[in-house]
């Protein structure tokens, strides 16, 4: 799998770059919103980033489950990588949301259900990293983080449905579901392109990070062997 990543990550990188550039061009050339002005352009970062952070956690849950079931190291490598990628997207969502929130709600932060649960997701990601770091035995670390990731997955539906279950400041879902369409034709094409770009970006980051994790582990093994040999 890692080999396959090594072979393809260049291609994915180029594809990411191209879609991202197209997306940005579309975003900048789209008309400003009559209500929100230029602030609306953050939407094209915020929404795909938010989707990707949820997707990353979903992926993490699957990889963790597979690791516990099959006990194959590649699943653990994928899990470790998706934690980093997910944390980055989550941070981006929070940051872009906050920046957007200042003009829209008059404050960087508000304690509504979606924002709170998203913050919890970030804490979870950080907790997973800290846990892996803090356990010396790699097998134990792998198992513990996998179990924790699965337990933490309860946060996902809460984030997703928070706008439906609770009265919130935050925008209700706009693509699908019972809520009325709020995204007009003008906004749709750049958003779609940006979404594709972010999916590609996520895939690329995952590949690169997995490669790095795998390389680090291999290096550690080699280092141990070298130490042993030097001592006879």
């Amino acid at each position, binding site marked *: 799998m890692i080999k396959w990543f090594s072979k393809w990550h260049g291609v994915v990188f180029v594809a990411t770059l191209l879609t991202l550039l197209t997306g940005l061009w579309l975003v900048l050339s789209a008309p400003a919103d009559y209500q929100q002005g230029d602030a609306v352009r953050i939407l094209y970062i915020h929404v795909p980033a938010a989707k990707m952070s949820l997707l990353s956690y979903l992926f993490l849950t699957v990889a963790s489950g597979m690791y516990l079931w099959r006990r194959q190291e590649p699943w653990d490598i994928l899990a470790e990588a998706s934690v980093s990628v997910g944390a980055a997207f989550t941070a981006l969502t929070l940051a872009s949301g906050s920046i957007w929130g200042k003009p829209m709600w008059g404050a960087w932060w508000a304690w509504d259900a979606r924002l709170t649960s998203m913050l919890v997701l970030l804490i979870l990601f950080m907790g997973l990293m800290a846990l892996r770091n803090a356990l*010396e*035995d*790699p097998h134990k670390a792998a198992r513990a983080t996998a179990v924790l990731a699965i337990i933490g997955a309860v946060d996902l539906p809460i984030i997703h449905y928070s706008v439906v279950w609770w009265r919130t400041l935050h925008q209700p879902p706009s693509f699908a579901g019972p809520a009325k369409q709020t995204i007009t034709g003008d906004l749709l094409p750049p958003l779609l392109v940006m979404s594709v770009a972010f999916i590609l970006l996520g895939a690329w980051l995952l590949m690169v990070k997995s490669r790095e994790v795998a390389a680090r582990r291999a290096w*550690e093994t080699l280092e*141990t062997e070298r*130490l*042993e040999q030097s001592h006879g």
Partner: protein
Amino acid sequence: MQPSPADARLQVRDLHHAFARHRVLQGIDLSLHAGECGVLLGANGSGKSTLLAVLATRLRVQKGSYQLLGLDVRESAEEMRGRLLFVGHHTHLYGHLTPLENLLFFADLQLITASEERLRAVVAAVGLEKFAEQPVRWFSAGMRKRLALGRMLLRQPELLLLDEPYSALDRQGVIWLNQVLQSYLTAGGMLLMASHDPERIAALPHRQLYLRRGRLVQSLEDEP
């Protein structure tokens, strides 16, 4: 007649164990028959305790195979735990409990039913009857060791794993232990112990096993 390896009730083949940064056991082959006693000798850090911990199912078998009484460790570790007894460097005693309570705890967790008289008899056998009601925390090193070893009187295990059992025991304790081990072996138990004082075991029929850097070797003479 020498019993053939196929009769062995404990069989270990090409056993490996590595801690994160360190390969400790590098291919151990070992077998024991009923009534046999093996003594592991080797330098500090050569892997004796690690080998015993793997056989006690405390550490995972990372490579190779380990079978006890026809059971495979990868499938029936839990059942094996009920058949063997391990007394290691640590006594596994709770300081705030008395000797009786500690034994009761052990019995319940090994699913052994033991009456109070039985427990008292064990405490007396290891020479601690005077201290039966005192918290173990205050015990001297040798008293703790005696109590830990006393566990093997609660039930005759099929495999006994001892890590430096003689340390901290006084002269009488050594004699007592050798008697107990003698009758354990006569009753057909298997015994594997790690030790640095082979002279103390002289009284028992045994086979010496030399461990060097995680491998069993013919002798320790060529130790650097």
